[in-house]
């Protein structure tokens, strides 16, 4: 709560973003204290990692001071107080913190907790609910991420004139020859980060993990590579059309696993017919869709970062051409 209040007061956007990263990390530790390990993992990776990174990249293009507002926000304060009061009044009827007789523990959850082992055979109940019982919601979520990636591409992608590409490559490569320690340490660490991402991906059945966290960690490794070794080198390693193909193929994989069960007269995303034994079919289905989710999330995060960074190159190039008239 202290970090949230500090965010309200600060005017320098760089500190605001750092504080929001700390806020994400603190809420991840809240989630661990409340026994939600999968959620804590995802919040730590996404909220404290990728979100801070994307905001920092956006700030390099939009400037990092906030102007003082001219009028006092009394009306806003009043609205906030009234809404807060009403909400607190509404929570008086809620069940106590941690009670096991609350209504949400009575209806659907006992069925998941009791029957998950027989029907699906996966120890991590969150994964089994996410990937099998509620697989349709997860499909929608993957499509949402894909759409966000497409949206960012539509907003921020630039097509360079061939003359300018060589100049930009030169600029990018010259900046990164001097960072010797960072380059060596990254070269040692990036394989381990990728290995950890794969571990989290395939181990999501038995412990906290799964497709989303693995995709985010994988993307973080690639972004680290791009930041240390230069954007042009990273673009040569990760071809742009290949990444777009990967993103769409992740969603396609997910959809086709669902459609395959149409061919045997069963429901969409019914895994029981994927193999002779229903439990093995469930395992196979969960593995495939988590793979699809991981591939899509990783490629979309990389696409978003490269779009932001490419836009920054574009605007820096414009500034150099017009003589630096834009102040930032």
């Amino acid at each position, binding site marked *: 709560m202290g970090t949230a209040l500090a965010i309200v007061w600060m005017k320098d956007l760089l500190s605001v973003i750092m504080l929001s990263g700390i806020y994400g990390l603190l809420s991840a530790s809240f989630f661990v204290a409340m026994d939600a390990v999968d959620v804590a993992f995802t919040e730590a990776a996404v909220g404290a990692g990728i979100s801070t990174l994307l905001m920092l990249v956006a700030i390099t293009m939009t400037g990092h001071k906030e102007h003082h507002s001219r009028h006092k926000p009394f009306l806003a304060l009043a609205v906030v107080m009234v809404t807060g009061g009403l909400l607190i009044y509404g929570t008086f009827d809620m069940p106590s913190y941690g009670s096991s007789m609350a209504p949400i523990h009575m209806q659907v959850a006992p069925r998941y907790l009791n029957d998950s082992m027989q029907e699906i055979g996966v120890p991590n109940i969150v994964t089994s609910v996410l990937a099998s019982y509620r697989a349709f919601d997860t499909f929608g979520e993957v499509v949402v991420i894909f759409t966000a990636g497409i949206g960012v591409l539509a907003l921020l992608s630039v097509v360079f004139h061939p003359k300018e590409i060589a100049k930009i490559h030169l600029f990018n490569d010259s900046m990164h020859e*001097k*960072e*010797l*320690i*960072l380059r060596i*340490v990254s070269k*040692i*660490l990036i394989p*381990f980060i990728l290995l950890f991402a794969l571990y989290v991906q395939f181990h999501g059945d038995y412990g906290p993990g799964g497709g989303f966290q693995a995709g985010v960690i994988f993307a973080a490794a690639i972004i680290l590579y791009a930041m240390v070794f230069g954007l042009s080198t990273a673009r040569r390693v990760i071809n742009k059309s290949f990444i777009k193909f990967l993103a769409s193929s992740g969603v396609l994989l997910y959809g086709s696993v669902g459609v395959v069960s149409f061919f045997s007269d069963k429901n969409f995303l019914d895994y029981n017919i994927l193999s002779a034994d229903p439990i093995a079919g469930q395992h196979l289905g969960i593995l495939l869709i988590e793979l699809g989710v991981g591939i899509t999330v990783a490629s979309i995060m990389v696409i978003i970062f490269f779009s932001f960074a490419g836009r920054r190159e574009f605007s820096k190039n414009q500034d150099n051409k017009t003589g630096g008239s834009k102040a930032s």
Partner: protein
Amino acid sequence: MDFLLNISSSLCLLIGSFLCISGGVGILRFPDFYSRMHAVGVTETLATTMILIGLMLQNPDALVVLKLILILLLTLFISPTASHALAKAAIQNNLRPKLDKRESNEKVTSSNR
């Protein structure tokens, strides 16, 4: 044996927490960017090491100890590199230390490779 393990692990955890707190005090009280960075960089790495060793002594199960050793190795790699990256970025943006006697508008040449 059990008693000895408990005592040593609590000792390590206490030392680690004390180092963390002293690093935090260092950030607030030191006058200059570079001394603050030094305070936090050194104490933070050692504090994490102590806390991890304390956790290792708490639970001598082989798999858990192996995972904690891996985390320790990663931290020993990453934390000093992060401090180095911060200090390097500061120098390249011409933030001089407080006691530096040179002119403040002399650009730092890339003499270090």
